[in-house]
């Protein structure tokens, strides 16, 4: 089973040179720490920054420069600032090559639920609904099962939906899976030491695989 850092590390392997990427709060934010060498990736933060850099040194902290998670950040060379309407215009126009976000549930047809749990305090959807409705390429980063062992990869989401038919790939502590256009989770890779049987047991939705020989994830 992967740690959250390893999940982020595995997601980073999906990055391609020149990609514009929006990273959600939580595990997705960690992806920035594992960008492969020789690959230029430009991070968009939906509060109005393209070209987000790493966290600042204490002496460089600027309260006027935060990311969408309200964390203090820096800007890379070549960064640009804009207002919130322009930021989501950029997102809706499909210019972001990859969107990585967390989820509470994903269904086998690519629906995602990640903003609301009935009976719990509703914090709001923030930019998640806009991101999932417009992104051409969405990777979900999450634990395969909840703390009490229930699968989060379902036939149908039970929680309120954030967006329909939008998730393309899921990277969990157990596996890398893609959502097939016709529905179903195709198992692409196993976490080191995790068996196909383990993944089957942890997946409520239909799990497909092309061969019995599913490769293990590779970390260099």
């Amino acid at each position, binding site marked *: 089973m992967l740690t959250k850092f390893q999940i982020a590390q595995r997601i980073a392997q999906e990055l391609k040179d020149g990609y514009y990427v929006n990273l959600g709060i939580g595990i997705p934010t960690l992806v920035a720490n594992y960008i492969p060498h020789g690959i230029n990736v430009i991070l968009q933060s939906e509060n109005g920054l393209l070209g987000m850099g790493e966290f600042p040194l204490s002496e460089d902290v600027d309260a*006027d420069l935060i990311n969408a998670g309200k964390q203090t950040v820096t800007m890379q060379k070549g960064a640009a600032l804009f*207002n919130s309407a322009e930021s989501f215009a950029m997102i809706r126009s499909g210019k972001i090559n990859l969107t990585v976000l967390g989820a509470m549930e994903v269904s086998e047809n690519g629906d995602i639920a990640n903003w609301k749990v009935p009976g719990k305090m509703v914090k709001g959807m923030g930019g998640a609904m*806009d991101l999932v409705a*417009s992104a051409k390429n969405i990777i979900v980063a999450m634990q395969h099962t909840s703390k009490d062992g229930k699968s989060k990869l379902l036939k149908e989401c039970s929680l309120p939906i954030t967006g329909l038919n939008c998730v393309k790939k899921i990277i969990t502590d157990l596996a890398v899976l893609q959502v097939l256009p016709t529905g179903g989770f195709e198992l692409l890779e196993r976490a080191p030491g995790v068996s196909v049987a383990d993944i089957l047991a942890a997946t409520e939705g239909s799990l497909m695989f092309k061969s019995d020989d599913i490769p293990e994830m590779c970390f260099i």
Partner: protein
Amino acid sequence: MINKIILDLKPYINKISDGATIMVGGFGLCGIPEKSISALLESGVKNLTCISNNAGVDDFGLGLLLKTKQIKKMIASYVGENEEFERQMLNGELEVELIPQGTLAERIRAGGAGIPAFFTPAGVGTEVAIGKESRVFNNITYLMEHGLTADFSIIKAWKGDAAGNLIYKGTARNFNPIMATAANITIAEVEEIVPTGTLDPNEIHTPGIYVTHIYEGKDYEKRIEQLTTKS
């Protein structure tokens, strides 16, 4: 030359009357109009409908106006940092309307651009779509959303001039420029008022036409929600 500078916020903030709808700039605590919020607190105005991306924290930003129960309704995209907010919402003391952040931004932009309605893909198939008209363009389903306007916008910029021109700094820009366009009266507070003519016209983010009054605030607290540094 036109002069929109005000030396005291109070008499202008006091014109915001009970039941008014106001837009309040900022994202989290970044780029919020600290001085105008303080003046609202002092004014004691009640039953406000506030349109703002967030609702502040318990002891800063809009959280201050929640504590004094001056806000009747909150229209926001994310309100997760505030216990008093939670308490009032669960008790039914506070109305809350949650809107996807991009839809909120575009509705404000539309309100300030004379666009009464537009279509967006955000929220299709979700609770947000309930009661809304949907429509298919090029095989994709969209929701119709309406422009948002307000009686007042209170916003924060970095620099400004007497003509009302504004420049923002960093990500403190966020909702401020679009809110400036969408209200009957826009009160902008800035860290520095510079002589008219010293801002490069090419670099102005908010043209003065949108700003009714401009005020130079002192000693901004600029509280940080998530201080995160490189080890």
